[in-house]
């Protein structure tokens, strides 16, 4: 199948730079969007991130997700998968959560 469905979530307040929406269902052509890196840089940053001039650095730093944001692939830390090189699957849930510091 060349079209796959991916759920993308922005938790821990990150939704504030994604139109205040915590969850997106995106359809991608997985002949072009193969890895998580492709999803982040070719879909999320281009289509979902609001006001990129101002907000890009809140989400991305040094060509990866910025420190303080955890990335989860189907509820597992992306370090347990292949991080940016993870190969997307149909129905994957990709979650980004900002680390909270209130007490």
């Amino acid at each position: 199948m060349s079209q796959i469905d991916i759920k993308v979530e922005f938790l821990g307040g990150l939704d504030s730079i994604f139109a205040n929406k915590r969850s997106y269902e995106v359809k991608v052509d997985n002949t072009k969007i193969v890895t998580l890196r492709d999803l982040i840089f070719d879909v999320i940053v281009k289509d979902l991130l609001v006001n990129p001039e101002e907000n890009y650095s809140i989400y991305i730093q040094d060509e990866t997700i910025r420190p303080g944001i955890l990335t989860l692939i189907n509820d597992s830390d992306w370090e347990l998968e292949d991080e940016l090189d993870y190969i997307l699957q149909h129905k994957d849930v990709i979650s980004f959560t900002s680390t909270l510091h209130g007490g």
Partner: protein
Amino acid sequence: MTDTLSNEEFSRYGRQMIVQGISNNRDPIEHQLLLKSSKICVIGAGGLAAPCLSYLAGAGVGEIGIIDDDIVETSNLHRQIIHSTSRQGELKCNSAKKFINDLNPHVKVKTHPVRLTNDNAFEIFEPYDVILDCTDTPMTRYLASDVCVLLGKTLVSASGVNTEGQLTILNFENIGPCYRCFHPKPPPPNTVSSCSMNGVIGACIGLVGIMQAVETLKVLQKVYTKENFEPFMLQYNGYMDQSLRRFRMRKRRSDCVSCGDEREITREKIESYEINYLSFCGSRNYDVV
């Protein structure tokens, strides 16, 4: 280990002692005595600590230390329910102590009316078995984690802002991942939000504080063991629907500068301020609320 319970303690703890199936087949008295002989230290006496302290004291933890140099203010009371209007202006650690003493006089409470620093962290943590992080800043979280790794103590760490909260167990029994394993690099200071800037629903942070109490009970009563423990993070959100997600997290990083194979962080470097958490995390002014 303390080896007896009084009649008063039997009737006080009876309802929790008869709960089956969580004691790893331990005798209920032994299971309760594990709490009675435990010493925990809570960093912060605010919105997370309020319910967390209440239930850990209620359950019969033997000794509780409380580190906080703030005083009780009106703006705390919507969520910091162990304090009270009549105790405004008092040190939070003293106010918390009064609450605990009146709930359960069997609990020994020690107050530490200071801010946790490179200077005092080792000395304060040393007598306790488990440390609870209920603080507000990345600086304190890195410091607490580094000190727990060096002292070999489990750290139960929680946080919350707005309607959300997070909870994890760090350096579990000296084999689990530490805060630096999760966050080798600190977040840029402008991306960190606090309760005073972003607001917080009292019941939402309260719920996370209770989850922290439940996890602490599992550590103290050895429900978690080196064999069954798997690193995790719980993420709660209160609105629109209440939800609780459980994320499976990485194990220790072998390249972690704190808990890895070639450790760079030492007690000497911390106490001499060679490791400077303020410059590491950046210079924004964090309020502990």
